[in-house]
Every structure is written in structure tokens, then in C-alpha cells.
């Protein structure tokens, strides 16, 4: 939620390029003192003042959850994206003041698991870094399989393999190294839970393979933040606040609602958490659903929309907001 979300003023204390795509940013509390502890897999929503535009992007916290002195995130530059990652890379400097949200965890460890089997693809490594730190503290058993394009782009692979030689396996695409997924899943002890964070294709591959092998859904966890898709501009009427606003080509419906001065609830801004679920009062056109939250029948009903990632094409859209 927005009104309920606690925010934290921070100072950027480090900006460390890791390779040509990924840069790490570290934050400390702007007023000194501790940041709240968090749980492995949590993310924070970073507010960026980009001219007259406010961007809000979620990033996984990758620092040690038990270390309240600072937070760290890693941002992969996406030149084709909507501009948040480019803003972080090009504009944000050490010493800048920023505002971030309290940690929220949509990808927590299942602490009943006997073993944690992790699959990371590319920048999807970040939530696992904090989860592994947490597991170190509580002597949890884990195994990480990390797929990267090349050694040069393998963020944090060296630290991980040095620290956890027997538990971290790195696979390089450019050397045709592949995760032997089915064999791995077949060989796990009872009570193992699977975690996946990476590109859509990887998530689908692991989930489908696990399902085919009889893994219960409850033992397979994944996190994929969707970036809002660009699309044709459209108008939306906000019935509860009596406003009409045009959603721009590169703007999300949620961002347009916020720009109109309407305080709408949100949490992940990536179609996963369900917090921004909004009732559709009337529409004449097509709702373009892009979220993971609503069920298929809810998508088909035309009665609900997740404005953080979903859009609309057509004549009239009236929302209860």
C-alpha cells in the first residue's frame, strides 16, 4: 500500500560497477543509525526523481539481512527499458539523497524446508545473495545453480564460489554449460524446496520440469518482477476521485493514477503482490492483463485489473479509484 508504506531516507554511499551491465549501489540511513533488518529475498522500492517524473522501481536487497549498517542493491542496465535502470546508472551518484521503502518480502525462504535448492539466471542472483547470508546464520542447507551469459557478466560468482565452494555451481552460456535440471530435481532429499529467480523462460522451465517430476507447487517458489509494458496511450476515468487522466505510451496505469494525485495502493509494482488490485466499473474495449496475481477467470471476467503492469485498449475505461 502507498499510504501505509513506511519510507526511509537514505544516502548513496557506494556505486560500484561490477561489469558492463551491472552496478551495485549501497545506501545508509540519511539520519544516521540503523536500517531495519529484513529477511532474505526481500526487496525495496527505490524512488527516483528524474526531472518532473517520479520513478518507483523494486530491487532485491542483496546485502546481509542481519547487518543494519547499510543496504545494497544491484541494478542491471536496460537501455530498452522505461528508464529507471538507466537513471540509476547515469544520474545517481555517491552522496545523493534518495527515498526507499521499508523492505517487503515476496520471495521468502520456506523455513520448514530441509534443504534450499536455488536456481538463478543473470541478475536474478540478487535475492539469493541475502537468502544465503540468512542461511549461513541459521546453518541452513542450500545449493545454488547460477546460470550466466559469460564469465565477464557473472556478477558475484567469484565471491560465492570462494565462500561456498561445495554449494555453488556456475554455468556459462558461452561455454555451452547447462544445468542438468531433471537429474538435479530427481536426486533431492525429501523436504527440499526449489527457488527460481531469473528470466521468464528459466522460471517456466524449472517450474514445468518440477511439475512433470511430481514436485508439489508449494515446494516451488519463484520471483519475477515484470516491468510495466509500454503501449498505446489511453484514457481512464477514476470514478471515486472524479478525475480523468491519459496514460502515456511509456507510463503505467498506476503511474498515471498517481500523477493525477490519487493515492492508490501498491507494493511490488511488478504484478506479483496483489496490493494494487482495482475494480473495473465499466469498460468498452480490451483489458491487456500482464500480471501474475489474478486468476485466469478473473482476467476473463473484466472486473479487475492490476494497474501496475496492465493496460487497456479501446474507448472507455472506468475504475473504482
Amino acid at each position, binding site marked *: 500500500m502507498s499510504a501505509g508504506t*513506511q519510507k526511509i531516507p537514505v544516502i548513496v554511499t557506494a556505486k560500484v560497477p561490477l561489469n558492463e551491465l551491472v552496478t551495485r549501489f549501497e545506501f545508509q540511513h540519511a539520519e544516521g543509525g540503523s536500517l531495519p533488518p529484513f529477511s532474505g529475498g526481500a526487496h525495496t522500492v527505490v524512488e527516483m526523481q528524474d526531472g518532473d517524473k517520479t520513478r518507483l522501481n523494486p530491487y532485491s536487497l542483496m546485502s546481509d539481512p542481519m547487518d543494519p549498517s547499510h543496504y545494497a542493491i544491484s541494478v542491471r542496465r536496460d537501455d530498452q527499458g522505461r528508464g529507471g535502470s538507466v537513471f540509476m546508472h547515469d544520474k545517481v551518484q555517491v552522496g545523493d539523497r534518495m527515498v526507499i521503502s521499508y523492505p517487503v518480502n515476496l520471495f521468502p525462504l520456506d523455513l520448514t524446508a530441509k534443504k534450499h535448492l536455488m536456481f538463478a539466471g543473470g541478475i536474478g542472483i540478487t535475492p539469493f545473495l541475502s537468502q544465503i547470508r540468512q542461511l549461513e546464520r541459521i546453518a541452513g542447507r542450500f545449493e545454488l545453480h547460477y546460470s550466466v551469459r559469460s564469465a565477464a557478466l557473472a556478477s558475484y560468482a567469484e565471491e560465492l564460489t570462494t565462500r561456498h565452494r561445495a554449494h555453488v555451481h556456475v554455468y556459462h552460456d558461452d561455454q555451452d554449460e547447462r544445468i542438468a535440471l531433471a537429474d538435479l530435481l530427481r536426486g533431492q532429499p525429501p523436504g527440499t524446496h526449489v527457488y527460481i529467480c531469473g528470466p521468464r523462460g528459466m522460471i517456466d522451465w524449472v517450474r514445468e520440469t518440477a511439475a512433470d517430476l511430481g514436485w508439489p507447487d508449494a515446494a516451488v517458489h519463484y520471483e519475477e518482477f515484470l516491468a510495466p509494458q509500454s503501449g498505446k496511450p489511453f484514457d481512464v476515468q477514476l470514478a471515486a476521485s472524479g478525475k480523468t487522466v491519459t496514460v502515456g505510451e511509456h507510463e503505467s496505469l498506476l503511474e498515471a493514477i498517481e500523477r493525477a494525485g490519487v493515492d492508490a495502493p501498491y507494493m511490488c509494482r511488478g504484478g506479483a503482490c496483489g496490493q494494487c488490485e482495482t475494480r473495473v466499473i465499466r469498460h468498452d474495449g480490451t483489458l491487456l492483463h500482464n500480471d501474475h496475481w489474478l486468476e485466469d477467470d478473473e482476467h476473463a471476467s473484466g472486473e479487475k485489473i492490476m494497474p501496475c503492469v496492465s493496460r487497456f485498449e479501446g474507448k472507455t475505461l472506468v475504475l473504482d479509484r
Partner: protein
Amino acid sequence: MTIQFNDETFRDDYTFRNSDWAIKRFPFPFHEDSYMYSVNMEQHRGGPEGSVFEKRFDVDEHYISEMRDRAIVLAEDPLRCQSLPHMTLAGWDLLELIMVSKSEDYPDLFELHRNGDKWRWINKPLGIDDTFTFMDDASLPYGPMEYITRQAQGDFAVLDQRENNLWMDAGMVTTQADWSLDFDIGMNFFEWHAPVPRAHEMGVFKRALKFLLNIQQGSPARRLNWTMTVNPLLDTSPENYHKWGVQKTSLMPENIGRKQHLRVELQTFYRLPRSNALVFPIRCYLIALDDLVTVPKWGRRLHRVIRDLPEDLATYKGFIRNRPMILDYLSQYDDGKPTSPGIWPDLETEPPLEK
């Protein structure tokens, strides 16, 4: 302000009493003249000065005596406190939350000194001064959850969050309105609420669960719940029903004002940071009807609520048998005048009883 702690009992001779201060700050649970279930949650971000909502964990005149009563219950029945193996981290989270909150909110009563993971905790009302290592289970005389909840009023259900559900995987439960941790341990949200009438059909639990799953770190929530209890018993557990259930038959027109209590739970909900678990403190407040009706608005309103409550709810809340006698008593304090909206006593603005 300095709290004058009572020396009182919640069993046998029942010397429990509310001072005038405690009566005026009682969390009266009805904001209007009728009652039905709702997902009546709000942010737990303080409240009017002196009210039970003001601090994160309210400490009042009953603190020392309530902790003494908890120790008696635990000595007789250790299963009132349980923590499944994966919940130890949540126990440390809870210990930190309570120690930090109490030392900040009541600096004259509690002190917390932290030097890295070496912590010193001073609880002046209970005469405790312990030094321990944070996250080292062996450095405390009990597990972290039991240690701190032996020093905090109210019950504590510690809920693990997984599979889009909440699981009753740890708790300290000695002041409960007729539910059992030992029975509910390991159950999910729908399972432990199965006995509640109507609310399932109304979709209340689905909505409530959705709300609770989304509670965020730093943004706790709260609600009030209520029932009726004969004699000021904290421990109205199923385990001890044979001891307290029969006391409901001791109610007579001559003693009802002293014996019949309105029992209100201030329920709060906090996301725990390291474990991502949810803690659900359930703080019980008792008030005798004789004390409650000293607030004219509350006397009028409680009569109307009890009179109009559907039969199944009165049965579930355990006072169907005594309802006629309770209504006879309460009707003396209802002159039919309108009541002001909201839960506050409004002593200055509400008219005195005209009867």
C-alpha cells in the same frame, strides 16, 4: 506517568480490580449500537494519549499480577507455550520488537542496552536484569519467544507465512477466550478459524487473510474483538473448562454486576523482519459490568448490542444461557437516549442516565 501496579489475582479469590484510570481507558469495542463481524482493521500507529492504543505494547496497572498468573498457568501446563523448530528466528524477532518498543515507550520501566550482539535488558517492574547474546539460544533461560512473553501482557500467536497462508507454528497462550494453542499448533488460518459461525459464509476470513498476508514491516495493524467472561479469569482455556465453565452457573441478579465481565481483546499484527513471520499479540482487558456502566454511553450501548446480537453469536461467545439475566441488569442503564458515534466514553458530552 508512573503506573501504580496492582497486587491482585485472576483466580480463587479474584481480587482483580480496575482503577478509575483503567475504567476510563478501557477499550470499549462497539463504535455503534449494534455488532456484526467485519474486517475492522486499522493502522496501529499510536492513539490518543493515555489510551490503550497509544503505545506499541500497552503496559498497565495489571502488568505484574498478569505475569504472575501466566507463570502459574505455565507451571501447571507447559504446552501453553510452544514453538515449532523453524520458528526460533521469529522468536528472536519478537524479542527484539518487544524489547525495543518497551524501552522506547516506557524508558522509566524498561531499558535495553545493545553493544553489537551483546544485549542487556532491564525490566524494573519484574526485577529482571539479564545480559545475553542476541541470536544465541543458549544465552537465555528460555527460548527467545518464551523469555520475552513471560514479560509481556497478552497472548502471542506467532504465524509463519507460506503457501499464501498463515500457520499457527508458535505461541504463548495463557489468557485466551476458549481456544487452545496445543490443539491449533501447525494449523493454517482457515483451519484454526473453523469453529467461528457465519464469518466463513460472509467471506470475512478470505478478506482478512488477504489483508494479513500483505501487512508490511513497519506498518502494524490492529482491531478489537470481544466476548463475555464470568469472574475476572484470564485463563479461560479449553484445557481448564472444567474449572471455569461451571462458574457461569454462579451468576445471580445480586452478583452479576461484580461477576460478569466484558472481555475485550486488543489484537495487533506486526510483520517480523528477519523471519518474515507475522506476530499476532492478543491483549485481554476485563471490566466488570458495575464498572462499565459508570460510563453512561457504554451502559446504554452494551445493552442494545447484547439485546440484538444473533443467537448463534451469543452461543459462540458463550453467554447465551445468561443473556436474559445480563439484559435485566443492563436494561437499568439504558434510558433510550441516542449515543454518540465511536468507542470513546465522551463523559463530558453524553447526558447522564435518566432513569
